[in-house]
């Protein structure tokens, strides 16, 4: 039995090409969408936290922070949208963790599809949740009196947010692959995301922070993202924060995506 003599069927396909891979990613994303259709509560769950944050921050802290709730709303909406987007990426990790433990990925990996398709499909589908969330916050913000700069600004902000979320989702994927339970993914995410988003200018002006914290907040990617959102949605500079947001996104992607893919492949052996 040293040599293979069984003739290979001519139609046996090898690795899927880019076109097929893309179609597989879309099918994976379709599955996630159908899941939401069957479990619409997920969208309520998704909407609850941004709504609460927006209402509480503006009406509880607004007066203290900016002298008036309406002034603070103009400032904080961009920051809250940035923070919420980063928190949302956690769900990518918890979802992947659940699928991995239930063995759904075993089925996927026994199929003649690209091995990256399940991960990519999940990340892609989660971008729908990002768009949903930003829409909820914008609509509520407008109802509360937010002065939107322009509709195109809102569209561009959504685009930037989705790109940034795509990049940092890989950190969540990494946590999702490494953790042995969904709860642990949530803890990882919390320990990183909570301090990261609060030590930025998402909610306060960085010059009010103590020296070292101010220095950190100046470079914190969340600050850049929040400023970009603020610039696009209400007022302030756009070009510089957008540049730094992009630099951070690319850098984080370059580090976490290979680590996540390595951990994912290792998990499979």
């Amino acid at each position: 039995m040293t040599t293979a003599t069984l003739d290979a069927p001519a139609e046996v396909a090898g690795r899927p090409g880019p076109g097929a891979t893309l179609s597989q990613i879309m099918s994976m994303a379709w599955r996630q969408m159908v899941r939401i259709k069957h479990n619409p509560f997920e969208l309520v769950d998704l909407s609850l936290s941004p709504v609460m944050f927006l209402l509480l921050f503006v009406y509880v802290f607004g007066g203290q922070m900016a002298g008036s709730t309406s002034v603070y709303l103009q400032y904080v909406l961009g920051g809250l949208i940035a923070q919420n987007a980063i928190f949302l990426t956690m769900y990518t990790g918890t979802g992947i963790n659940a699928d991995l433990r239930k063995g759904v990925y075993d089925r996927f990996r026994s199929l003649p599809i690209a091995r990256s398709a399940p991960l990519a499909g999940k990340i892609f589908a989660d971008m729908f949740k990002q768009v949903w969330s930003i829409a909820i916050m914008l609509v509520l913000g407008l109802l509360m009196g937010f002065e939107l700069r322009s509709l195109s600004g809102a569209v561009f902000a959504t685009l930037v947010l989705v790109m940034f979320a795509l990049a940092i989702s890989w950190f969540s994927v990494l946590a999702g692959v490494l953790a042995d339970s969904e709860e642990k993914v949530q803890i990882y995410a919390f320990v990183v995301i909570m301090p990261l988003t609060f030590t930025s200018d998402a909610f306060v002006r960085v010059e009010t922070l103590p020296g070292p914290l101010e220095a950190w907040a100046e470079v914190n990617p969340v600050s850049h993202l929040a400023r970009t959102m603020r610039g696009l949605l209400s007022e302030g500079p756009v070009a510089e924060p957008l540049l730094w947001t992009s630099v951070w996104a690319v850098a984080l992607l370059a580090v976490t995506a290979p680590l996540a893919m390595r951990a994912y492949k290792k998990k499979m052996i």
Partner: protein
Amino acid sequence: MSHDNAVETDGLTKNFGTLVAVDRIDVSARAGTVLGVLGPNGAGKTTVVRMLATLSAPTAGTARVGGFDIVRDGARVRSLIGLTGQFAGVDELLTGEENLLFIGRLLGKPRGEARSRARELLAQFHLDDAADRAVKTYSGGMRRRLDLAASLVGRPPILFLDEPTTGLDPRARGELWDIVRNLVGGGTTVLLTTQYLEEADQLADDIVVIDHGKVIATGTPNQLKAKIGGQTLRIQPDDPTHVETVRALIAESHADLDPLIEGSAVTVGVNDDAIMPVIAATLQSRGIALTDFHLGLSSLDEVFLTLTGHRAETDDEASEAKPDPDSASVAEEETK
């Protein structure tokens, strides 16, 4: 490698750290037949299937599936196989039809074709009535059938079934057996792992018995039965307390026999039925009344006991087992 083997392994080995989960296993499945891989929990069955399905890389040794090396040609192997594991390979939130539609789309079938294939499989597996219900409402047997259907969407010529009936009630198990028989009738090669001796006996053309990661016996069901003496004599005394007396009497008077106590009966493998009247006379002379005294073909259970020195899980215990697909895989996980 023979032309006829759809699956063939050569010294296939898998270590998890210091633990040797699969130890130089050589098995082959002839095209169009069922190979039963029989062994207790933790024997390494699932690990073998995971390697063959390219989910896990072997530590040493090679294997070919449909003529392709599982390591070098994984993508081609995957286009030839279907896998139904102990895991939940279907999505609980989706309906039965959506699950199959999803796999069809994933495999690149156009929407219409994916839908007609889904409907065809649902009808074939008697799930058409439940097609539009979420899988979480399915019974254990329905879920397994859907899981099996999901692995068949792409019409794979080679099918791996990892303990497909663990935790199912006898009726659901029988239905699944019929499905497997039909598939094999249609030319599919099946490699099936099981801890149920009856299942291997019912379905398999060839059986490989593994224990602690090693192959301890191979052969057809009949060959394996012949290995420990073709037939089994079953003796049940009227008075259950006489069981030990019966066993001792047979052991004393026939040094070549190895009588065993099974509940309220004694079983003994025999090669020559001429021994029956001799044993009957011995017991009669001691005044032991019998309710049962008959000769039958050895069950694989006895084969297993003889080969491994311990009993495999019996059907009775199995049907008490939790129908939770995770419970079986957890046991296998522990070996990792």
